[in-house]
């Protein structure tokens, strides 16, 4: 391994390699970004149905949500990805990036739903009662009181989910997609590099830097949301 640093230098000085890594990184980020959008949107819907008051209109939707989250959280992501690729979207010519986004989005929705549900339920019941006693509508109570407080509980856990999704998308290389992980493998198998360790190490740095940045942003958002908990003034 005494050629580790020279190899790293070689990798960074070869535009072709950097190009591959950046292409892979772009795909990883594209899948993650859109999957998380789907995850948060669908997860919010599921969480709202889940936390809504029991009524005859919601019996079936509530049941569907329970089955959905149970199945998604109870089966491996890799398996869900394979089913999407080789069963549900096994149409020739269907863009694989869309299949991957849907697979990860549907998966993330189940976890995000749990995060949002517990965030909503952790808001003190007295806060809702205050709004009720003042004659406010359920919608106003949710938008003005419940949601702003729930978000404070949701953001840290949602940050976790973002991190999980970004790293988990690495398994798309199993269905032949050229993401960051695949780019590393590709470079490593090339004649010139002839080493998996170096490109994998660099790919790891890419993941690490991205996630470090996201953690930083989430912390900042958290902090600004917690302003009203401080003993200060507006």
């Amino acid at each position, binding site marked *: 391994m005494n050629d580790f640093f020279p190899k790293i230098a070689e990798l960074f000085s070869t535009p072709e390699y950097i190009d591959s890594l950046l292409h892979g990184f772009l795909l990883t980020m594209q899948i993650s970004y859109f999957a998380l959008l789907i995850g948060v949107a669908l997860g919010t819907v599921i969480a709202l149905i889940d936390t809504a008051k029991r009524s005859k209109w919601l019996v079936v939707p509530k049941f569907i949500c329970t089955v959905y989250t149970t199945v998604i959280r109870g089966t491996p992501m890799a398996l869900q990805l394979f089913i999407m690729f080789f069963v549900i979207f096994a149409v020739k010519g269907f863009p694989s990036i869309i299949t991957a986004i849907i697979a990860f989005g549907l998966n993330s929705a189940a976890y995000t739903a749990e995060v949002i549900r517990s965030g909503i339920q952790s808001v003190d019941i007295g806060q809702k009662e205050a709004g009720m006693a003042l004659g406010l509508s359920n919608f106003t109570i949710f938008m003005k009181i419940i949601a702003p407080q729930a978000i404070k509980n949701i953001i840290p856990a949602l940050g976790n989910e973002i991190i999980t999704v970004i790293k988990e998308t690495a398994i798309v290389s199993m269905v032949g997609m050229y993401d960051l992980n695949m780019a590393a493998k590709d470079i490593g198998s090339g004649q010139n590099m002839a080493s998996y360790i170096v490109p994998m190490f660099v790919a790891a740095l890419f993941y690490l830097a991205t996630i470090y940045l996201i953690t930083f942003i989430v912390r900042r958002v958290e902090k600004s949301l917690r302003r009203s*908990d401080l003993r*200060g003034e507006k």
Partner: protein
Amino acid sequence: MDNQHTDLVVRNLKKSFGENKVLRGINFELHEGERVVVLGPSGSGKSTFLRCINWMEEPTSGEIFLDGVRIDAKNVRKMRRNIGMVFQHFNLISNMTVMENLILAPVKLRVMKKDAAMKRARELLRHIGLSEKENAYPASLSGGQKQRIAIIRAMMLSPEVLLFDEPTSALDPEAIGDVLSLIRELADRGMTIMIVTHEMSFAKEIATRIVFIDKGRIIEEGTPKEFFEHPKTERVKEFLNRVL
């Protein structure tokens, strides 16, 4: 239609939580300017009774009328504007400043314009000596301050009746005094009030009528003098022996 001066009528109110029958048929009237203190052992249903009046808990059966209008699922939101409520744990909205707490309902319900609501809020804050807390968040206030702000928040909508659900149970002795004197002041100004409390001496002082609830029923009613000095039932005698 009930007599003109009747504010609130409760008829055969029952409330169960699953198998647990908390209220077993309550008949009650509250007239304008009255100050009714609801007493009873813990678990007797007195808080549930109070919470059923503005439908914080939906009654299992029975009827509640405010000024002759029956409260139901459709009109309950509108009715709540006329029934202010103060909670044991204050329930100030924690993501809003004191001012935002005070003007939220009047502005949202279009009872007042924002400017007018802020003006009234400032007057009330000045009155309770907390003007400087206008922009503070609830987390920075003491219990007594929170409860007095919760009381003026309920007053912002100028309700016909104010319900107090154990307003001093979560406070330290000094804060209790502050909150009680604010309630006393509202009483002196003719506010119609219903209080669930454990403060016996305050009950004696402020009540025009005492209602005693046990096992989900009103078992005795009377003026404070009658109630404390000449209780009619064994149950109340036993209760008074224990708490006085």
